[in-house]
């Protein structure tokens, strides 16, 4: 969940009263937990954990507004978009060249705004927060804000080859072309993360004004020319995107939060975006929409019994202005553009529950009776684990991911012949493949515990992962039992004895026809002539034997070793 840091003094000033304990409680109720940050400096900073879908609480302005509405100090604002006083809307034309790289763009104007250094910083911080969160590190949406008085519309959104783009980027002293810029920013701790979004594209997106001034090269950097300052009075906002819905939300959040500082608060000057097919759209959308919920339904889902009026009051406190309709049986809710997280009645019901207070809801137990059952494979596993431990083996619990070498080279096998699942994006060699045998993990466990007294007798009953086209994902798990004896002598008879005991416990007789037997086989992992396959009702279910000396050495061990590995599914 995103963390928003706020100076206590700013919060106090904005709320217009000193922050008493109950206010802190409010923060906690409204947004989750309010935790006092460590006092690094003199100023007290509150770190507020905000749910990842509440974009309207990502800045001081939004948090204060939310608290004031919750405290019923102010009504929830009604956000409006209006045409400019001049009658001439700012226009932005989207050129077809953008369609392959970053096809969408929305825009709006904050007119007659007055920044203070606090609100200016908050404006920048909010863009940062949105970029990290909703904009998916600028991959989905990138925001550009410009001093409208330094540029002149109409604006052109197009895409050009990198070498043809030349401008002075934000906070730089000279001009660069886009190729040079990519190079320049490849060492920038902040911007380098965004370069891959467009780096390999043949054309890069750019926005120009009517005089050919470059506003921005999204999603990397703005031009220096149109940068906003504390003195900026009119802000032109553009959001370019690969996801139009997200772009609209981002624009709505920005303008609803900061139109509060405009001469006419909560009012936003609209702009026209002309698509490459010639159609046009007016932004920001700032759509308020209505939902109607049955009071009964709300009570039933939360587990409370409250009147329509109470529910409407609770929702209104949550910035969802509500009124009772149809004799109190229903509630009509106005969902403001700040609440893009509300997409279903259940989202509204959650707000009722939050405003009511989760911990005030009466705990109840559903009365349906259900008959429990264990998963048969897990039940067998647990029974066998007990028994194998009883005969003196200690249980290991190893990773199901490992390196290719663990299941191939170290076992004297070819990785190509293993039905192994390969991981495409492992961060280390330890997670290259899913294991196809439990043996490697146990050998590694012994290697990490060489200080333990001999003999070491370890076992594990767990899943290996095998490619298998009979399953929808092309893979199945197989539950195996693996046991290893490590001592000054191989102890084949110990492992063999364990097999006999397991079969005895599974009520499987030693019989070629109707039970189990073992027969000699060759397996590169095992010492020649010291390996047998275990046959159960005519099918091979595993192997046992003395490990090949090379295998022992490759696992960084030095003593003889006998092992057993069987599939336990046939015994279900």
């Amino acid at each position, binding site marked *: 969940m995103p963390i928003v840091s706020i100076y206590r003094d700013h919060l106090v000033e904005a709320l217009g009263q000193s922050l008493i304990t109950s206010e802190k409680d409010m923060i*906690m109720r409204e*947004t*989750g937990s309010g935790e006092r940050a460590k006092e690094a400096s003199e100023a007290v900073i509150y770190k507020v954990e905000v749910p*990842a879908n*509440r974009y309207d609480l990502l800045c001081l302005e939004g948090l204060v507004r939310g608290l004031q509405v919750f405290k019923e100090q102010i009504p929830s604002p009604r956000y409006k978009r209006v045409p400019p006083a001049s009658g001439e809307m700012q226009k932005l034309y989207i050129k077809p060249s953008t369609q392959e790289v970053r096809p969408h763009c929305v825009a709006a104007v904050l007119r007659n705004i007055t920044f203070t250094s606090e609100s200016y910083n908050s404006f920048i911080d909010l863009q940062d927060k949105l970029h990290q969160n909703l904009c*998916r590190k600028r*991959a989905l949406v990138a925001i550009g804000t410009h001093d409208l008085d330094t540029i002149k519309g109409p604006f052109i959104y197009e895409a050009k080859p990198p070498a043809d783009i030349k401008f002075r980027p934000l906070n730089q002293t000279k001009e660069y072309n886009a190729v040079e810029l990519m190079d320049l920013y490849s060492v920038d701790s902040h911007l380098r993360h965004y370069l891959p979004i467009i780096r390999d594209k043949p054309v890069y997106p750019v926005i120009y004004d009517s005089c050919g001034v470059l506003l921005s090269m999204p999603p990397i950097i703005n031009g220096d020319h149109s940068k906003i300052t504390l003195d900026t009075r009119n802000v032109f906002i553009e959001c370019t995107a690969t996801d139009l*819905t997200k772009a609209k939300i981002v624009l709505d959040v920005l303008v609803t939060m900061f139109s509060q500082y405009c001469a006419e608060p909560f009012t936003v000057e609209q702009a026209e975006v002309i698509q490459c097919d010639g159609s046009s759209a007016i932004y920001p959308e700032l759509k308020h929409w209505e939902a109607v919920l049955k009071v009964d339904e709300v009570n039933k*889902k*939360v*587990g409370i019994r409250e009147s329509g009026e109470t529910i409407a009051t609770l929702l209104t406190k949550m910035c969802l202005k509500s009124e009772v309709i149809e004799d109190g049986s229903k509630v009509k809710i106005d969902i403001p553009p700040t609440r893009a997280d509300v*997409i*279903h*009645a259940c989202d509204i019901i*959650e707000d009722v529950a*939050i405003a009511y207070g*989760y*911990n005030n809801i*009466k705990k*109840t*137990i*559903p009365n*349906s009776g*259900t008959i*429990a*059952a*264990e*998963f048969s494979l897990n039940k067998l596993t*647990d029974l066998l*684990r007990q028994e*194998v431990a009883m*005969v*003196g083996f*200690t*249980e290991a*619990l190893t*990773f*199901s*991911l490992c390196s290719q070498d663990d299941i191939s080279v170290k076992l004297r096998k070819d990785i190509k012949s293993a039905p*192994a*699942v*390969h*991981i*495409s*994006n492992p*961060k280390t060699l*330890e997670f290259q493949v899913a294991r196809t045998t439990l043996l490697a*993990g*146990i050998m*590694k*466990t012994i290697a*990490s515990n060489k200080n333990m007294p001999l003999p070491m*007798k370890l076992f594990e009953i767990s899943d290996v*992962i095998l490619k298998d086209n009979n399953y*929808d*994902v*092309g*893979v199945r*798990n197989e*539950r195996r039992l693996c046991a290893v004896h490590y001592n000054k002598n191989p102890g084949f008879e110990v492992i063999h004895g364990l097999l006999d005991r397991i079969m005895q416990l599974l009520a499987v007789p030693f019989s070629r026809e109707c039970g189990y037997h073992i027969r000699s086989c060759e397996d590169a992992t095992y010492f020649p002539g010291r390996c047998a396959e275990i046959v159960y009702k005519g099918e091979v279910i595993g192997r046992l034997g003395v490990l090949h000396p090379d295998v022992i050495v490759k696992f960084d061990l030095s003593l003889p070793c006998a092992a057993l590995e069987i599939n336990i599914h046939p015994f279900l």
Partner: protein
Amino acid sequence: MADLAETILCNLASADAIDSLDLAKQLNEEHQKIVGAIKSLQSLGEVIQCEQVASKRWELTDEGRQVLKNGSHEAHVFNAIPTEGITQAELMKIVPNAKVGFSKAMSAGWIQIDKKAAGGPKVTRKVDSIEDKVKLLLGQIQDLSVNDVTEKDKLEFKKRKMLQEVILKSYLLKKGAEFSTSVEKPETDLTPEMITSGSWCTKKFKPYNFDALGVTPPSGHLHPLLKVRTQFRNIFLEMGFTEMPTNNYVESSFWNFDALFQPQQHPARDAHDTFFVSDPALTENLPMDYLERVKKVHSEGGYGSQGYKYDWKIEEAKKNLLRTHTTAVSARMLYKLAQEKEFRPVRLFSIDRVYRNESLDATHLAEFHQIEGVVADYNLTLGDLMGILGEFFKKLGIKKIRFKPAYNPYTEPSMEIFSYHDGLKKWVEIGNSGIFRPEMLLPMGLPEDVVVIAWGLSLERPTMIMYGIDNIRELVGHKVNLQMVQDNPICRLTRPATLESCYVEEPSSHWHGHIAH
């Protein structure tokens, strides 16, 4: 030895007290042997009383004994000087230990040196005869008539390494309460013969040392984490929950994310967070009817939802991965339930491995165990979820729990679960929970009035806390500490001072069994 012990007892019979050193002299035995016999007499109980005593004594060193025998170094020097004198160089050559002897003879005024003599410094006698007082005094010390020797002399001799002070430890023996001159050797242990013959009733037995530890029984051992897993399984079974088949670690993105109404651009679907599978890379076999409904609810909405309004792609849904939560299995189970003719209420649980492609540290691994509980029934409420969670955590010995709003793409409402930590005097997070969204359940075909509640937590975290393990690698994986496995106690969750009082650290993301993103 027994003979010696009896001899000692005989000696003691006629005396009030005997010192072991005197005994040694008297019996002409090494003192050590006497001490051994005394020890074995002591082990018989109250036969003798024994008290350790220490005494100090002066004793000649080897050098001291040499001097006593042959005379002091200074006497040697004096005797080596002929009446006409001798060069110092020559003197030094012919007399052993001449250096010490020379300086002592000089300071005693026995000899003199003429440094200006022709042919080098020359030494001559200064007196006609001498009395070798050193030898005399050492003789007196040896004869124990030490009183004639002054402390000053003794210290001087000690300095010259001819004398040393030794501390003698000996035992002062007295008769004990059960004193007797005949010794019966006690039996070490009961034997079958003694039982048969009945001789045990007249025998004496050596006392046991109850301060020693017993012999470790030969044994196998179960793994601590799986012992805790067993207890969690039992809790679910006690509460009527059926275990889900979670033995499918590789899952399609469809079941792991899309079916849960988790949008395709969600950060959890990033390669940074999730292990994707390159071989076999794709799931080809998806339930197409259902998939179409899922696609629609993501991209356009429906079932009362506005949807996420984005371009949903089947290619994204087909991507195989290592499941990031067991909720993927819960989704499969709920879908299966929805395909049954008539809905029936179910309670389901699972405890199995899940995977996160995250940076490893002392509390985070790329694979860990998620505990998950799911209840599907008509008209369940948030109060029901809180009630069931209350019962569940009560069985873990956690009585005080609270709930906090949270966000999770597939549950609404969502609640983080906190328990009060008595030691830290604060609330700490112990799990995640919520009600599955209608956008997840309705496309499956579940009836509209069916509500599904669920919660999750990790198995590793409570286990580490319960057993006081700081580094998760010591618990899970091949770097496990086997000694810890072998010494590990049985798992009793509701014992005081176990789980509840143990939640000491900030919760790691592993607690977010259910959410984590």
